[in-house]
C-alpha cells in the first residue's frame, strides 16, 4: 500500500494563511488537512509527519503576537508536541506560527516584538541561507528572496549576546541581507538543536510559482518560486527517512 506523507495545519481563530500554505504543501506531494483548533486532540497528531502553524493573527494577536495560541496549545496538547518531535515529527511555524513556536519555548529562547519601524511591513526581502543542511533549506541557494508581511518580526533575546550564540551554534537558519525590522543579527528564521522545529518570519507559500515574483523577468527558475523548493526540501527529506 502506498504510504502518504501527511502534513496537518492547525487553524486558530484568526489564522489566515492556511489555505495557500496547504496548496504549497500539496504541490510538493504532501497529503494535507486543516484542523480547526477545536478538533485537535493529543492522540490525533501521532500519525502525522509534519505539523504546520500557518501565518495570520491567532486570536487577533491583540496581546503579544501568538500568546493566546501558546496558552491554548499548552493547555490542550501539553507535552504532546514535544513527544511528537522526539518521535521524529517535524514542526514548522511561518510568521504568526514562528511567533507561537518561540512563545512555546520549542525554539531557542527569544521573543518576536514590534518592528523598529513600528509599522506593518508587506514587502519582499533577500535572505541569507545560514543552514544549507536543514531539510527545509537544502534545496535553496545561499541567498534568495521571499515576501514578508508582519508588524512583530524583530527577534530579541534576554541577554544581548544570546543571539550571537544562536548564530555560532547553528540555530539561525535565515538572516535578512538588509535588516529591515531591527531583528538581532538580522535573524529571520530559527531552528532547534534537532533541526526538526523550524520557524521563519518570511512567507515561502507566497512564492510558490514563478509568477508570484514582483519582477516579471525574474530568472531564478522557469516554473516554481523559491517557496516551492522550501516545501519540497522537507517533503523529500521525510520521504527518504
Amino acid at each position: 500500500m502506498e504510504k502518504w506523507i501527511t502534513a496537518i495545519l492547525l487553524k486558530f481563530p484568526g489564522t489566515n494563511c492556511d489555505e495557500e500554505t496547504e496548496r504549497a504543501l500539496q504541490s510538493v506531494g504532501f497529503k494535507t488537512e486543516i484542523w480547526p483548533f477545536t478538533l485537535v486532540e493529543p492522540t490525533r497528531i501521532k500519525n502525522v509527519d509534519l505539523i504546520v502553524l500557518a501565518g495570520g493573527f491567532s486570536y487577533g494577536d491583540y496581546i503579544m503576537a501568538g500568546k493566546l495560541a501558546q496558552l491554548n496549545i499548552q493547555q490542550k496538547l501539553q507535552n504532546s508536541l514535544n513527544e511528537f518531535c522526539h518521535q521524529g515529527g517535524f514542526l514548522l511555524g511561518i510568521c504568526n506560527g514562528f511567533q507561537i513556536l518561540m512563545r512555546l519555548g520549542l525554539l531557542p529562547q527569544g521573543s518576536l516584538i514590534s518592528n523598529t519601524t513600528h509599522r506593518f511591513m508587506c514587502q519582499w526581502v533577500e535572505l541569507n541561507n545560514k543552514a544549507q543542511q536543514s531539510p527545509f533549506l537544502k534545496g535553496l541557494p545561499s541567498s534568495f528572496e521571499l515576501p514578508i508581511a508582519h508588524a512583530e518580526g524583530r527577534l530579541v533575546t534576554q541577554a544581548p549576546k544570546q543571539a550571537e550564540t544562536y548564530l555560532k551554534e547553528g540555530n539561525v537558519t535565515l538572516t535578512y541581507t538588509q535588516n529591515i525590522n531591527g531583528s538581532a543579527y538580522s535573524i529571520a528564521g530559527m531552528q532547534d538543536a534537532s533541526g526538526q522545529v523550524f520557524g521563519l518570519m518570511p512567507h515561502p507559500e507566497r512564492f510558490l510559482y514563478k509568477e508570484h515574483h514582483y519582477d516579471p523577468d525574474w530568472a531564478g527558475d522557469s516554473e516554481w518560486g523559491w517557496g516551492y523548493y522550501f516545501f519540497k526540501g522537507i517533503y523529500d527529506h521525510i520521504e527518504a527517512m
Partner: protein
Amino acid sequence: MAQAVLHKPSIEVSIRDKSDAELSALSSVMKLSLSVEDMKAIQIQYKNWDRDPILVELEVIAQTWSEHCKHRIFNAVIHHTSDGKQTMIDSLFNTYIKQVTQGIQAQKPGFILSAFHDNAGFIRLDDQTAVCLKAETHNHPSAIEPYAGANTGLGGVIRDILGAGKGAKPIGSLDVLCFGKPNTSPSLIKTRHVIHPLGIMRGVVRGVRDYGNRMGIPTVTGAIHFEDGYLYNPLVFCGTAGMIPTEDIDKKVVHGLKVILLGGATGRDGLHGATFSSTSLDTESHEEDQGAVQIGNPIEEKKACDCILKAREEGLIDFITDCGAGGLSSATGEMLSKTGGTLYLEEVPLKEPGLSSWEIFLSESQERMVLGIQPQHTKRLFELAGIYETQCAEIGEADNSGHLKVYHDGKKVCDLDCSFLHTSPQKTFRSHHQTKIASDIQLKPTADWGNTLKRLLKEFNVCSREPIIREYDHEVQGNTIIKPLAGALGDNPQDGSVLRVDQTEKYISLGVSLLPQYNPDPYRMGLSSVDETIRQLVVTGADPDRIALLDNFCVGNPDDPNELGKLVECIKGIADAARAYQAPFISGKDSFYNYFETDEGPESIPLTILISGIGIVENASHITGASIRQPNSKICFVGISYPETGGNACAQLTDQHGGPVPNLNPEEAIKIYRTFYKAIAQGMIRSAHDLSEGGLAVALAEMGFSLKAGLEIDLAKIPTRTTLGTGNALFSESNNRILFEVSSDYVQKITTLFQGLPFSIIGETYTNHRDLCIHENKTIIIQEKLSTLKESWKNGLLPYY
C-alpha cells in the same frame, strides 16, 4: 420624548391626530430623519389600519426608508434643467444605470450573472465559477472616529461579499480615500472638533490595515485623493471582490426556513447608523453621534467567514445576507420582504443585558450575518459554529403571512405589512446645470520643464503611496500577481492589480478611478472615470469585452439644485461611456449629505464618483505590468492628446487654471482597447502604462523607475489632431491613451496591427544611460536622471505617513 418611554417595548406612539408640524417635531426628536411627507404617508397608513404605530415599527420604517437603505434620491423624480432645457427624470437609477446594464445583458448573454438585487453583482469567470465586486462608503463615521469608521467600513463590505449569493469568498479588497491635504494649516479649519487631515489619514489607513490584514484578505488596489474640499467631510470607499461556484449564486427564502443569526453579539453600538449617515455633519455630530459609530472586531468576522464558507460548501445555506445599516431590522426586513415571518428578540445573543426591543432590532453591532436554513440543516450549522468558535442563534422563521412580526418576551413589538414597509413614497427634486465653455490654454513651465516634472512627481496627488501600501498585506492568500507596487525593483506604481482565482485557470484584474478635479464639467468627469477604469484594467491584460463596473457616488447637499444638477450630468456621462464600452454596472451605492455645517456656513465636498472595475484576464501570458523591462525596446503611444487642461495636475501645480476637462470619443477608444488586447494576446507587449495624472511625462518617468533602461522619446511624434504646444504634449491628461513597450522585432507587426488608429512609435529604451530624455524634434526639453526623479516621487508622502 422621555428616555423612559423609549424603553417600554410595546408602547404605541400616537400619530393619527398630529398636525404636520407635530409630525415633523416627532421625527426630529426620535432621530428618524423622515420628512413631513414620509410622516404623513405613515399617518395615512395607520389611519387605514385604525391603530397607532408601536415604537419599534416607527424605528423600522425610518431605517428602511432611510436614504442609506432605499436610495430614495436615486429613485426620485427629478425636474432637471440642463443649459435651459427642461427634462423630467423618473429615477436616475432606472433611467441611466439599470437600463445600461439591461441593454448589455441582452448583447452579452451569460456574462452578467446577477446585478443590483443581491449584496454584490456577479459576472462569469468560467463554466463553474463567478466573481463579484462591491464597494461601500463609510464617510461620516470616518469623519468622527477615523480608525473605527474605516475599520468597520471594510468589515461591512466584506460582509456584503459573504452575504452575496449563498456566501461568496472574499479574495481581494480596495480602498479609495479622499482627504484634505496633509499639510493643511490648522488655522484654515473653520470650526471646532474637526479632525486635521493628518489625523484622519493615519486613523483611516490603520483602520483599513487592521481589519483587512486580520481577515486575511489582501488589500490590492486603491487611490488617495487630496483636496481642500474634503477637509470637513473625508470620504472612505471600501470595496471587496469575491468568488463563488456559479450554482451557489441564486438564493431564495421560502416558508419554513429558520432564521439564524450568526457571528458577534448585539449591543448598543451603532444605533441609528443608517439615519445618521443620511444627514449632514455638524459640530454636534462630533459630540452626540459617537453612539452611531460601530466598533470592529475582525477576528469575530474571520470566524464567521470560515464557518459560512464551510457551511456553503456543505450545502447548508438556502439564504444569507449581512447585518449592515439598520441592523437586524434591515437584514430580516429584506430577507422576509416577499414571504413575511416571525422573529423573537429574546433569542438574540446580547453583549450586555437590558437592551430594549428597538435597540436589539436596530443595533448595528458588527460581524453579524443572517441566514435562512432548512430545519434539517440547523444541527450541522450549530456544530460548525462550535468548530469555528463563532456564535449561532435561531431567532425566528419565514412563513407566508406577508407580515414582519416581531415578539420580545412574549409581547408583540412589531407587525408590519411587508409591502407597505418596502414602498417608500417617491421624492421629488429640482436640479439645474449650466455648461461652462472653457477655452484652451497653453501650459507654461515653472523654471524649466525638468523642474516642473520633478515638482509634479512630488505632488500629493501624483507621488508614491508606498508608505501606506506597505502597511496593507497585499499578498495574503498567495494570489496577488500584479501587486500595487512591482517592476524590477518592486516599487514601481502599477495600474490595476491582477489576482489568480483559485481552482481556475483565470485571473481577475481590479482597478479604480476617481477624478473630482474634473468637477467643472461633471458630464466629462463621468466619461473620464469610466474610461480610466477600463484603461487601467486593459493595460494589465484584461479583455476589454469582459469588464464590469461599480458606481459609487458621494454628493453634498441634494436639496441644492446646482449640486444635484452636477450629479445628473455626471450620471449621464458614466452611462454614455459604459454603454459605448459595453461594460455593465453590476452594483453601486450612493452617499448624500456629505457636507458640514461650519460656523460660517455649509462646506460641501466636490461631487465625487468612484468607478471600480473588475476585468477577466484570460490567461497567465496576458498579465502585463507597468514598468520598463529591457533596453532596446520601442516605446509606443496610442491615443490622441488634446490641449485639455481642466483639472490638470500640472496646471494646478503651476496655477494656470481653466481649459476644458478631457472629453472622450468612446467609439475610437474601444477600438484602441480591442486592438491593444490583440497585441497582448499575440505576446507583443512587454509593459504598458495608462496615462493619467501628470500625463505623458509622469507616465514615462513611472515606467522608467524600474531603472532597467534609459528612455528617449520625441514629443513631435505623439499622435495629435490640433496644435498642442510643448506643455500640453508633456502633461495633457486626455483620455484613452496608453504608453507601451514593445520588442524592436515587432515594429512592423505592431504598426500594421494599429493601422488606422492614432498610433506612433515615439522613442526607445537605451542601455548606455538611465536618463529620461524628452526631445521635441532636435531640441532637448527634459533630460533628468531617472533615479533623481524617482527620489522626488518616492518622498512626497513620506514626511506625512
